Structures are given as C-alpha cells and as structure tokens.
C-alpha cells in the first residue's frame, strides 16, 4: 500500500516535470541568454603587440640612437645649433617613451628599465659632485653602476635645458665640458637600455639565448611553455590594467602631487620634466598612449583592432563613450597651457591655471572610473 503511494507521487512528479519541459520546448520565445558576448581576440592581441607596443619600442630605440649621436656631435662641436638639435632629439625620444607608459608591464618592469631610464626627481646634489670630479670623460659602464637618480631622461634634460626656473632655453656657453661629456655618457647608457627593451620584446625577454621574445609570449597565451599568460583573458586584463595605471598616475600623481590643495601648497619640485617645460606634452603623450592601445593604432595610422573592438562586442555605447572620454582627457590636458602657452610648473601656482588643471584632473577621473568599473568587468561577460 505504502509503496503504491510513493509510486503514485513519483509518477505525478515526473509527469509534471515532463509537462513543464514540454511547454518550454513548444514556446517560440528564445531561451534566456547567459548575458555573455563573443569576441575573437587573436587578431586584436597580435595587432596591439606588433603595431602598438613593439612598434613604439622600436621607435624609442631608434630615437635613443639618435639622441646618442646628437650628444656626440655636441661634444665634438659645441655650437648652439648642436645644443638645440640635442634638445630636439631628447624631446623626440621622450614621445615614444611617454606613450609607452600605457603598457608598462613585461620587460620594462622586470628588467627595471623604467627606473634606469626615467627616475624622477633628479638628484642634483649628487650630479654636481659627479660633474666636479670628471677626470677625462664618463664611461657608460661606470655610469651604469651609479644610482638611477643621476642618469636617464631627467639628468639629460637638466644638462640640456638648464634648471627650468625662468625659462627652458640654455645658452651653449653655459654648457660646461663636463656637462657635455656626462651627457654623452648618459645618452650612451640610455641608448643601451632602449635597445635592451626593444630586444626583450623582439628577441629574448630576459636576454638569455634560449628564452622567447616577450612579444611572442603575449601573442600566444595558454601554450604549454608560456608561463606568463595562461589565456587571452589574462592578456586583455594586462592591457586594460596598463591603461588604468597610467590614467591614475597622470591624474592622481604627476598632476595632483605638485598641484596640492591650493596655490600655496603647490610644489614645483615635484613637477616632472620641469627643466624642459615638457610636462604637459609628457602628460598628454601618456594619455595618447592609452588611446593607441584603445584604438589599436598609433595616431594617424590606418584602423586596426584595439581594445575598442573588444568593448564594442560587449557594449557598443560604452565603446564610444570611453573613446570620447580619452579624447576629452587629452584635450583638457593640452588646454592647461591656456592662451599664453603657460608651462605646467607655472600653471600650478596660477589661479586660472589651477582651474584648467582641475578640469583636466576631473576628465582623467571620469576616464579612470569608466575603465575600472565598466571596461574591466566586461572580461567576466566575455564568452571565451
């Protein structure tokens, strides 16, 4: 009797379930979506690696070589024209480096290239000591053993442009023999490091003959011998985090630190590239670097796949919004110089300048929020 009862209940349940299933399959409405989107990322990753990152580092290595040649010329022939040429070579090398800060992962980090090239601030006290003790030039190998705060971009900048307080012009007569010789030694070290970085992406990530190029590792995630990237998700995450990192650094570090809370607490000593008055170019180049990764091509090049294509696949309106927020941030940074071409180191102490700086900081904050809370979470919705 009891068994019969259970069987009856079971039969009832089964038939109910069957009926449910039946009604579903008869229904013409589509099954509930799993809220995920599809995107084939291989082309995008390959393109970003080759055409944006490696291309940028190749340019940097080339500009590093040119910088070295310009300094050699300057030492051989100390003329105002050669000094100006060396200044231009410095600015030309600065551009690919600052744009490359949007993807400051991999060898640039693991080989400590970043502090070797771009330590800030410069240790002027030690630099004075080094220059005073010049006994017949400066060998690159010797300089490499010294601490980073007396070498790299900003030391060269100081030697080329002067202290930057009143202007960013330097008379060649003010360039001592020691300064010129140290500049030449520094630019040789600089050239070597930019080459090391380029090689690490193209030939071997750690300089060992058996190792793969870092570019190859980024382009082929998930393969058995790739201990850096287990999947394409990891690569895209690295790229997006790279963009977030530099937006954060420009807005909350490079601009905000010297900016302070008021003109009285503004601190010029914290302004990067203050000697050449190149700060605003640095900052906008940083965000142009973000745009390069986002759009998938360097400014002016033909359209290729970038992070924007990944975002589009997930959320079309977001893709457009982030694109315009990046452009807006660049414009607002460039606008800090106002109508009278005011350098950043002066703008932080200027009432109107401070208003323009705040506008740029707000634009950067907005962009950072979008990247962090809208773009990054798309990785969870990506059907891999």
């Amino acid at each position: 009797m009891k068994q019969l009862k259970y069987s009856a209940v079971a039969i009832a349940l089964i038939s109910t379930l069957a009926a449910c299933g039946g009604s579903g399959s008869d229904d013409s409405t589509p099954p509930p979506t799993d809220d995920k989107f599809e995107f084939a990322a291989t082309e995008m990753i390959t393109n970003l690696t080759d055409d944006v990152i490696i291309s940028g580092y190749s340019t940097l290595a080339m500009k590093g070589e040119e910088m070295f040649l310009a300094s050699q010329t300057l030492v051989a022939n100390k003329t105002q024209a050669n000094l100006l040429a060396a200044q231009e070579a410095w600015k030309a090398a600065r551009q690919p480096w600052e744009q490359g800060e949007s993807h400051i992962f991999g060898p640039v980090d693991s080989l400590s290239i970043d502090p070797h090239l771009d330590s800030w601030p410069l240790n002027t006290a030690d630099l004075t000591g080094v220059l005073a003790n010049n006994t017949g030039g400066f060998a690159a190998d010797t300089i490499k053993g010294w601490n980073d705060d007396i070498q790299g971009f900003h030391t060269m900048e100081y030697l080329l442009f002067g202290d930057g307080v009143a202007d960013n012009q330097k008379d060649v007569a003010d360039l001592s023999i020691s300064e010129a010789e140290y500049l030449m030694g520094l630019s040789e070290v600089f050239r070597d490091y930019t080459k090391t970085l380029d090689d690490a992406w193209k030939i071997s990530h750690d300089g060992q003959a058996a190792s793969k190029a870092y570019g190859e590792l980024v382009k082929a995630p998930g393969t058995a011998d790739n201990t850096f990237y287990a999947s394409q998700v990891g690569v895209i995450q690295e790229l997006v985090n790279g963009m977030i990192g530099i937006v954060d650094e420009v807005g909350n570090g490079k601009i905000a630190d010297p900016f302070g809370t008021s003109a009285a607490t503004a601190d010029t000593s914290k302004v990067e590239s203050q000697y050449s008055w190149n700060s605003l170019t640095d900052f906008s180049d940083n965000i142009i670097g973000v745009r390069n990764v986002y759009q998938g091509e360097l400014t002016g090049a033909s359209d290729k796949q970038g992070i924007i294509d990944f975002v589009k696949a997930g959320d079309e309106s977001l893709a457009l919004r982030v694109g315009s927020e990046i452009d807006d941030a660049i414009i607002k940074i460039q606008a800090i110089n106002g109508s009278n071409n005011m350098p950043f180191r002066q703008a932080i102490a200027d009432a109107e300048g401070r208003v323009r700086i705040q506008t740029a900081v707000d634009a950067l904050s907005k962009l950072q929020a979008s990247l962090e809370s809208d773009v990054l979470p798309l990785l969870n919705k990506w059907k891999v």
Partner: protein
Amino acid sequence: MKTKLSLLALCIAGLSCTSAIAATDPAQLEQAIAKQEAELNKLKHDLAELAAHQKMQQQQQEAQAEVVATATKELIESKWNKFSFKSYGSMTYTSDEYYQNVQDTSPERRSRFDLERIVTEFGYQFNDEWDMEVEIEYEHGGTGTALEYDGFDEFGEFETEVEAGGEVMVEKAELRYRPSDEFGVKFGNIHLPIGLSSILHKPDQYLTVLRHRSEAAMLPAVWNEMGVGIFGELANFHYQAQVVSGLNSEYFRTYDWIASGHQKRFEHVNADDLAYALRLDYGNFKKGSAVGVAYYYGNTTGNRHKSNKVSGDGTVSILAVSGAFVQGPWILRGQYLNGTLSDADAITQANKTTPGLKPGNFAQVGSESEAFFVEAGVDLSHFTPVPITVFANIDYSNPLADVDTGIASKRYENTWTSVGINYFPIPEIVIKAEAGRQQVAVSSIPDTNFFALGVGYQFSL
C-alpha cells in the same frame, strides 16, 4: 598594714619552734624523713618526665625542620624554578624633518609614534650545564613580511608575502652548554657580538631614545644568525667565537650597506656561504666598564638566489672597536665600525639587472663603510635625589664611504648630534627625551632638527 606583717612574723616563729620540738621524737623524725624522701622521689620522677618530654619535642622539631628543608629543596628543584621569563620593550615618539624627494630642499616636519618593540624572553635551565633561551620580538606592534624565492615560477621570482605593518620574529633561539665560567658553547639562532646594539639593546642600556643610528645605517640591528659559538671568561677577559650563516648580497643597499642583506627576510636562510665572528672584551659591557674588539668575516655571493650573477665572493669584513667607562655618576660609551666589501661594483650591477629584484635606485653599494658613536652621560642621582641621567650623543655613519669606481656620493653621510635625559621613576622603567640635529654631508641639503620621546621597560622574573 604593719600589724598584719607582725602577725605573720609571729606565726612563722611559732612554727619553727614546733618543728624543733618535734625533732626530738625519733618516730616523728623518721616519718618526716620518709615524707621528704617520698617528695624527693616524686620530684625526680617529674624531672625525668620533663626531660623525656623535652627530648620528644626536640625530635619533633628536628623532624619538622627536615620536612621544611626537603620542601625547600624540592621548591628549588621545581620546574618553575628552572623557568625564567624576561621582557623589555619601548615606545617612541619622534618628530623629524623630512625631504619629500632628492630635489626638495625645504624640509617638512613630521611626527610619529612607534611601538618600537616588545621583546619576550623565555629560558629554561635543564640542569647545571644545559639551558635554553628563546627571544621573541614584536616590532611596531605587527605581524610581518616574508620573502621567498620561487625558482620554478617563470625564470625565478622573488615573492613577497605581506601580512601587516610590523614584524614578529624570533630574535634568539639558542641552546647553551656551560660546564664552567671559562668555557661554554651555544648554538641555534644566536646574537652576533658585532656592534654594541647586540650586547646593549635593552632600553636602560643605552642613553639615546632610538638605538644608535650610526650602527643601524651599517649593520643589521641586534644582529642574529643561525650558527654555533663558543664563549667564556678568563680573568675578566670575555671571548666569543662563532661560525654563523652569512649575508645575501642581493639585498645590499646604498643607504644601509650590508644591513638589508641580513637573511631574516627570507623564509629560508641560504647557508652556502658562512661567516665568522670573533670578539674579545676586557671587562663587561653589560655590567659597566669594558674595552673590546670584534671582527666579522664572510662571503656573500653563494647566498644569492641567482648565484651566477656575481663572479667574485663579495666578501664582507667588519672591524669593530668599542669601549665603555661606567663609574659612579659617569657614563661614557663609544664604538667605531669599519667595513669593507669586495666586488661591490659587480654586486651593484647584478642587483640592478636581476629581474624582479628591485633595489631600484639604491643598488650602488659601498666598497667601504664607516660609522661611529660616542655617548656620554652623568647620573644626577649621585648628587640630587632625582633619578635622572643627562646625556650628549654623537652618531656618524657613511655606508657609502668609498666605491670601486667613480666617486662616492656624500648623500648618505650623516651626522646626528643630540642631548637629552633619561628619567628612571623606578629602576625598571625609563622615560627618555632627546633633541638634536641631523647633518647630511651635502652642503646643499640643509641641516634638520629632530626631537624624540620614549618610554622603555625591562624586567625579569
């Protein structure tokens, strides 16, 4: 009253008369003698009883004394008596002037509190010869960080595990065998006798609020390593000789020379290169006046995780000369340290180019390092009822005294001069105050002033 006394006298006289008369009767006399004899016998018996009683009492007392003695002996031999517990600690408040960066020449004053350390020390005396001691230090009131080298990850990774702000660490864990005053052996995690801080690290053993800055800029503070050592005293000479784990040059830095190479930061201590330490003192620094000399020698390249990055040995040698004069109210202590490092350039290059290892801007290591301090104090309690010691101190350090090639920056050459007081409300507690000036040997960097307060304690059960 007088009449009463007279009456009594009469009675007594009467009585003696009667007995005199009675003595004449032999029977009566016999009776009296017998009675007296009986009384005497009773008296004898009573006396004997009393003597027996007294003897018994004495025996009882002796037995009781024996019980007490046994109990006392047992107490002495009890487990708790073999156990010892000591503790010391300090909390400081400092107000220093800081430079935001190397460009900055207008210093900013910052103040901070620090629960510098709480140290607990447990000891156990197994028997007359063997004992052990474990010292656990809680620094800055926190837990800690461990650094691990993972050789299987990518091309070898330095991994840091951060657990919280401070540090908990076993500063000493040693077993000692000491058959005589002249000779003893200790092994385990032992204190190196290099640098006076390793010997005088309790708050009442030095006068400054913070331990001597000169030594901290050159040596590991309260330097401890794994190893074995012998020690002893002969006619007021104290000697120590040790073989201990060496340093790892991957973490040598510009600002503190070899101090960061102390392998306490690693989960495991690499022991491919050992070091040797010797010390000879005349007198006892812990108890008062003494003079001493110490020497440390050891290679460091073998202890690198990436041992193929440096071809030389990276030999560290340190000579320490120290002296103390403590007599009556006068206190004078000083130490001079001189160190050399071979292959300093090779270490600098390797540390700058080892992937994942980030000494960053502080990779340049001195081939020579130098430091000294002198502190002088007067204990005013000898002259007044106030238990205060006033002192003056000078600390100097230059971890980058010389480099293999090029010129050594003077940025790390520091001199601290200060004056202050130590106040002992009770002998176990000291309250300190110190004010002074820090000078960097670079003329473009202005001198800065500092002020510090501290409270320290120490006790032992």
